[in-house]
């Protein structure tokens, strides 16, 4: 009986530890990268990192929380507009105004959750979409921020972004390039925080509770998991982070319009495809998905609508023949889990067991 004490529940695996170390190295490389690569590479990486952040967040909602939202563009858009409002109306420094994007997303998320949580399954999806449309149409009425046509960040604001002068001096680049580097670093911070945060959540009690709710809401309730509060928590967290990401994306472009900020295609369709193709319900999936997505985008960039046509068809094919995505194929063949969240019993081998 004393031997039992040496068994413990763990999520730790050898590949998991190796992947963690590799991630740390990658982050370090990511930080110093602007010293070695061109501005266009930095811009591409910015795009990849922000899309990855959105994909991880949507995956948290749909893959782990069972909340299939097709209205995430609401939070991208409101976050971006709040950042613009902070800069243009209140004269904030754009970097601080990004935080305003998170606050605005939270303020929108509360009534949104109140509405859409009354809806089940598919109704929920449509409900989030309607809320996003309503938000877009309301923001288009906001004449001081350009109404339906949109507006740009004023020169004096973009010229005085916190830290840009230091980056200019450090890398001896033009102001516009320095702004891209700053946005890239912020995107790196965001993606690490979001991915790490989700990983941390899943390895802790929330991950277990989410899995329980996803598998069987009633049973989860009976063992004391409050499914309602859990969904609220996941939805609000994802909304705030999506708002921050939206603000950052439009800090980099420095120009905004309701159609761009609330674009279903850009902020939800692409994101859904990234998660589906990579593998829903895993942390590795969106990472693999964003890489595939970017390669496809680069390869098919010259073919206009063929690109989206093939993206749609690929998503359908993946859903039909590999519903757990590319990462699902890889991990089921190799048993590989870079971000292990499953609990395993660890300890000495049991003698004479089956």
């Amino acid at each position, binding site marked *: 009986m004393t031997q039992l004490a040496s068994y413990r529940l763990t999520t730790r695996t050898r590949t998991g530890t190796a992947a963690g170390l590799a991630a740390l190295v990658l982050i370090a490389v990511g930080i110093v990268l602007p010293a070695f690569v061109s501005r266009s590479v930095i811009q591409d990486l910015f795009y990849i990192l922000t899309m990855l952040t959105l994909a991880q967040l949507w995956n948290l909602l*749909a893959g782990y929380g069972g909340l*299939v939202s*097709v209205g995430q563009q609401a939070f991208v858009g409101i976050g971006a507009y709040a950042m613009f409002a902070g800069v243009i109306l209140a004269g904030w420094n754009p970097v601080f105004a990004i935080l305003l994007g998170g606050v605005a997303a939270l303020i929108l998320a509360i009534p949104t959750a109140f*509405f859409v949580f*009354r*809806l089940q*399954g*598919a*109704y929920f*999806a*449509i*409900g989030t*979409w*309607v*809320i996003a*449309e*309503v938000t877009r*149409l*309301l923001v*288009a*009425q906001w004449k001081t921020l350009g109404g*339906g046509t949109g507006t740009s960040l004023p020169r004096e604001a973009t010229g005085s972004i916190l830290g840009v002068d230091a980056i200019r001096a450090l890398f001896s680049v033009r102001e516009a390039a320095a702004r891209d580097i700053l946005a890239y670093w912020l995107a790196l911070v965001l993606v690490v925080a979001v991915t790490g945060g989700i990983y941390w959540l899943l390895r802790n009690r929330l991950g277990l509770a989410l899995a329980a709710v996803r598998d069987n809401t009633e049973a989860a309730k009976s063992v004391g998991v409050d499914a309602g509060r859990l969904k609220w928590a996941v939805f609000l967290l994802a909304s705030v982070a999506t708002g921050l990401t939206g603000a950052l994306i439009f800090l980099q472009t420095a120009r905004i319009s309701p159609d761009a900020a609330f674009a*279903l*295609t850009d902020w939800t*369709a692409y994101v*859904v*495809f990234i998660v*589906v193709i990579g593998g*829903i319900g895993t942390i590795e999936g969106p990472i693999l998905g964003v890489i595939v997505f970017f390669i496809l985008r680069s390869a098919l960039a010259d073919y*206009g*609508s*063929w*690109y*989206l*046509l093939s*993206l*749609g*068809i*690929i*998503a*359908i094919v993946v*859903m*039909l023949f590999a*519903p757990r995505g590319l990462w699902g194929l890889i991990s089921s063949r190799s048993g590989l889990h870079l971000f292990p969240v499953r609990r395993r019993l660890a300890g000495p081998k049991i003698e004479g067991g089956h």
Partner: protein
Amino acid sequence: MILVDTLVQGILLGGLYALFAAGLSLVFGIMRLVNLAHGDLIVFAAYLVLLGVSLLGLSPFVAALLAAPIMFVLGWLLQSAVLNRVLGKDILPPLLVTFGLSIAIQNGLLEAFSADSRRIPAGALEGASINLGIVTVGVMPLLTFASAIAVIVALNAIFYQTALGRAFRATSDDTVTAGLMGIEPKRIFAIATGLAMVVVTVAALYLGMRANFDPSVGPARLLYAFEAVIIGGLGSLWGTLAGGIIIGVAQTFGAAINPEWQILAGHIAFLLVLLVKPRGLFPRAVD
């Protein structure tokens, strides 16, 4: 008088939205499938009708008559080859597949027909109107509304007075027991989607004759259709008409106050109904 006029225009507009929604309601009611590509399929059918008119020189109504069986077959194939594989307890796969389909159809149409706005020429019907004493109404909106009623009456007749309709309802209740009755649920689903695509063709006819359309207008139609279905309550076609009318009236009143508020007013009406009655106005007893 402006009030009455706005109300009548709104009700008639609701007929168009009910047409958008009827096919969705049918499929949703029978197999709980949410087809996010529904709006794009309407636009696709509108191009099909337009081809009949412009290439073959047919009247739009004859062109729609020809397009309907094509759409039936496409719906049947779509259900058999794709959607039947993803139906199940988990609602995520069908949502994602139809989302992919939506994007694929939009961009396929963009490639085939460009982003230019098109319209199905309706000849003398365009702009014709009838004076009803209190209000003057356009012939086209009136025809749309009458078609919506006709479609709902026909669908209800199929549903409640034919062996096929019995099989629809039985399969919707319990697929396993339906199988024990010799019914192949997947075939029933394929027929239902085919039928929904025939309704989609009717919707497409009026979508294309009443206003300009381009490959990108599908998702907005899907939203109106969905709002009508949800307001009406799952599986009730007359409820869907009521839902369409509520959206239509809200939109015309919104537009009467400020043209920019038309769409917004419709969405807000939807959210308000949802707040009061989350299961819609006429929910079915069994769900």
